[in-house]
């Protein structure tokens, strides 16, 4: 007979969190990469506007 799996999650959940998630180096790098892309595009469009006026 099939068993219900209702109780399964509660026990395994604590074991998944073993990876070290405190390092934010990758996040920092990607945040700044995105930030610089935004700044470069904004500045280039605005300087194009100023150059044409």
């Amino acid at each position: 007979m099939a068993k219900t799996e209702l109780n399964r999650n509660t026990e395994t959940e604590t074991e998944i969190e073993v990876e070290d998630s405190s390092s934010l180096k990758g996040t920092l790098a990607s945040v700044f990469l995105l930030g610089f892309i935004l700044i470069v595009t904004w500045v280039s469009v605005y300087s194009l506007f100023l150059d044409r006026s």
Partner: protein
Amino acid sequence: MHLHKFEKIWLIFGIGSLLVFLTVLGVSAFYLGNQPPSCLATIDPEKVDTQAPFNEPGLKKVEGKEWEYELVFVASAFNYTPGEVQIPKGAKVKVIATTKDVIHGFEVAGTNVNMMLEPGYISELVYTFNKTGEFLVLCNEYCGVGHHMMTSKIEVVE
């Protein structure tokens, strides 16, 4: 509340660049006076042809204003009046335009003159033509089957 050191760095960076962008826009709007081309001046689109300045489209010299010329354009499906105009080099021109029917665009290719013409509204923009040559005026708001053929020409001469 505990914040990771990196989180503080990118929050400061993000908020800082937002402030820089907004300051530049604020100076541009409130100090340099840049505003949207259509700024609440209205007109009855059915009576465009009979009302000044649209009863005489084209370039006109004006005195005692911040600009030297006024360039009046009337757009309708699918052409501009005038179809061609000459402007002396270095002239500070106020472009005044409106439409008689649907929404049209008014873009002078290669310059900052780019505005939307809405029925019932007058669009205005001041621009100094510092480069000689031929400039294509084109419609960049889809207005119907003849949209791609809707053009005019501005010639900047010495």
